[in-house]
C-alpha cells in the first residue's frame, strides 16, 4: 500500500469509527412536538391479550403459523428437542426477551412521548424503548434481550424495527436465532380500544421465509400496571438437566 493511500484509508476508517461511536443527541421537546403527538393514533394505556384462566377452556383459536426452518436450524432444533427439557429458563425467572416478550398473558403499558414510544411489560418488569425521532438503527448494537428498536409512523401504523438480540433469547421453543435476526412490528388500532400487532421475524440463517404472527390486545382504561418481581417467591425451577420442579419447603413465616 502506498503511503498516501494508507493515510486516506486511515482517515476513512477513523471517520467511520467516530460516526459509529457518536451517540444520537435527543433534541429537547418543544411545544410543537407535544402538539404533534396529539395528532397520532393514541396507543397509550394498559393493554392485555384476552385470556382464559389456568386449566380453563377457552374458544379454540387457530394455531399460529410455525416458523419454517433452514436445514441447519431444523437439525439444531431436533437436537434441542431431543434433550427433552421440561421447560425454559423463564421458570428460573429469566425474562424471555424478544420476540416472546410480546406474547405474555400479562398487560403492557404503552407510553408516547416526543420521539419515543415506551412499552412497559408487566411480566418480569421489562421495558422496551422504541425511538421515533428519526435516528437510524445502530450498525452493530450490543446484543440485548429486547434488542435495539426504532420506529416510524406509516399512516395510522407504528412500524418498529428491532435488531441486536442476546443469544439467550430464541425465536420460538428450541429455535435459536442468528445475529441476523430482525423483527418488524406493526402496531395499529383496529377499534377504539383494540390494537393489532403484526410481528414479522426475518433471519436468513434460520428461517426460509419471514415468520409473521398477529396478536390482538384490548385496552383497559380502568387498569394500572402492577409490580412483578419474579424472584419474590419463585418456587418453580428448571435444573441443569432440564428437569422442572416445585420447591415445597416451608413458607417464610409472616409476622
Amino acid at each position: 500500500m502506498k503511503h498516501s493511500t494508507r493515510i486516506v484509508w486511515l482517515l476513512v476508517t477513523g471517520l467511520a469509527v467516530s460516526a459509529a461511536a457518536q451517540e444520537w443527541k435527543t433534541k429537547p421537546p418543544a411545544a410543537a412536538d407535544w402538539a404533534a403527538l396529539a395528532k397520532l393514533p393514541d396507543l397509550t394505556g394498559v393493554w392485555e391479550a384476552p385470556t382464559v384462566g389456568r386449566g380453563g377452556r377457552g374458544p379454540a383459536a387457530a394455531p399460529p403459523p410455525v416458523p419454517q426452518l433452514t436445514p441447519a436450524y431444523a437439525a439444531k432444533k431436533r437436537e434441542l428437542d431431543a434433550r427433552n427439557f421440561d421447560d425454559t429458563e423463564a421458570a428460573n425467572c429469566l425474562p424471555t426477551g424478544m420476540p416472546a416478550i410480546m406474547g405474555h398473558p400479562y398487560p403492557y403499558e404503552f407510553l408516547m412521548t416526543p420521539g419515543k414510544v415506551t412499552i412497559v411489560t408487566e411480566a418480569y418488569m421489562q421495558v422496551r424503548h422504541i425511538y421515533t425521532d428519526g435516528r437510524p438503527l445502530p450498525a452493530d448494537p450490543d446484543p440485548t434481550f429486547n434488542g435495539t428498536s426504532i420506529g416510524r409512523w406509516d399512516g395510522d401504523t407504528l412500524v418498529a424495527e428491532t435488531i441486536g438480540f442476546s443469544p439467550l433469547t430464541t425465536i420460538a421453543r428450541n429455535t435459536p436465532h442468528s445475529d441476523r435476526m430482525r423483527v418488524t412490528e406493526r402496531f395499529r388500532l383496529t377499534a377504539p380500544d383494540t390494537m393489532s400487532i403484526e410481528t414479522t421475524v426475518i433471519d436468513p440463517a434460520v428461517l426460509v421465509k419471514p415468520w409473521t404472527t398477529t396478536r390482538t390486545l384490548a385496552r383497559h382504561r380502568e387498569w394500572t400496571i402492577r409490580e412483578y418481581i419474579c424472584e419474590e417467591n419463585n418456587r418453580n425451577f428448571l435444573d441443569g438437566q432440564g428437569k422442572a420442579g416445585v420447591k415445597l419447603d416451608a413458607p417464610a413465616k409472616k409476622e
Partner: protein
Amino acid sequence: MRPIARTAGRALLVTAMMCGVATRAWSHHAAAPVFDMNAEKSVTGVVKQVDWTNPHIWIWLDAPNASGQVETWGFEGMSPNFLARRGWTRTSLLPGMRITVTFRPLRDGKAGGMFMTGKLADGKVLTSTGAE
C-alpha cells in the same frame, strides 16, 4: 368418519385446545411437567398462610392425613396481578378459614398442586381465574 375416529379426533382437538390454553395463560413456567393436568383432587382443611406474591400466590392449608396427623399442603395459584384484576384481593383467603380446595396434583406425589377452586364455609367459591 367412523365413530372411533371421530372420538379420537375430538379427544385430540380438546387436548390441543387445552394445550393452547395452558400456553397462553402460563407465561412463567409450563404446568404439565410438574402438575398432572388430567387429574383433579380435593382436600378440606384450614388455611395456614397465604403468600400474596409473584410470580404465583401460594395457599398453605393444614389438613389431617389418613393417620389423623395434620399435614401442610401447598397450592400454587396465579399471580396477584392476574387475580387482583379478576375479583380476588389479598384478604380473599385468610388464615383460619376452612376451605375445600380442588387442585391438579403434583406429579411427584407431594402434598400440593395447582389451585383450581376453593370453596369457603359460606359457600363462596374462589377460582383460579376469578372470584364469584
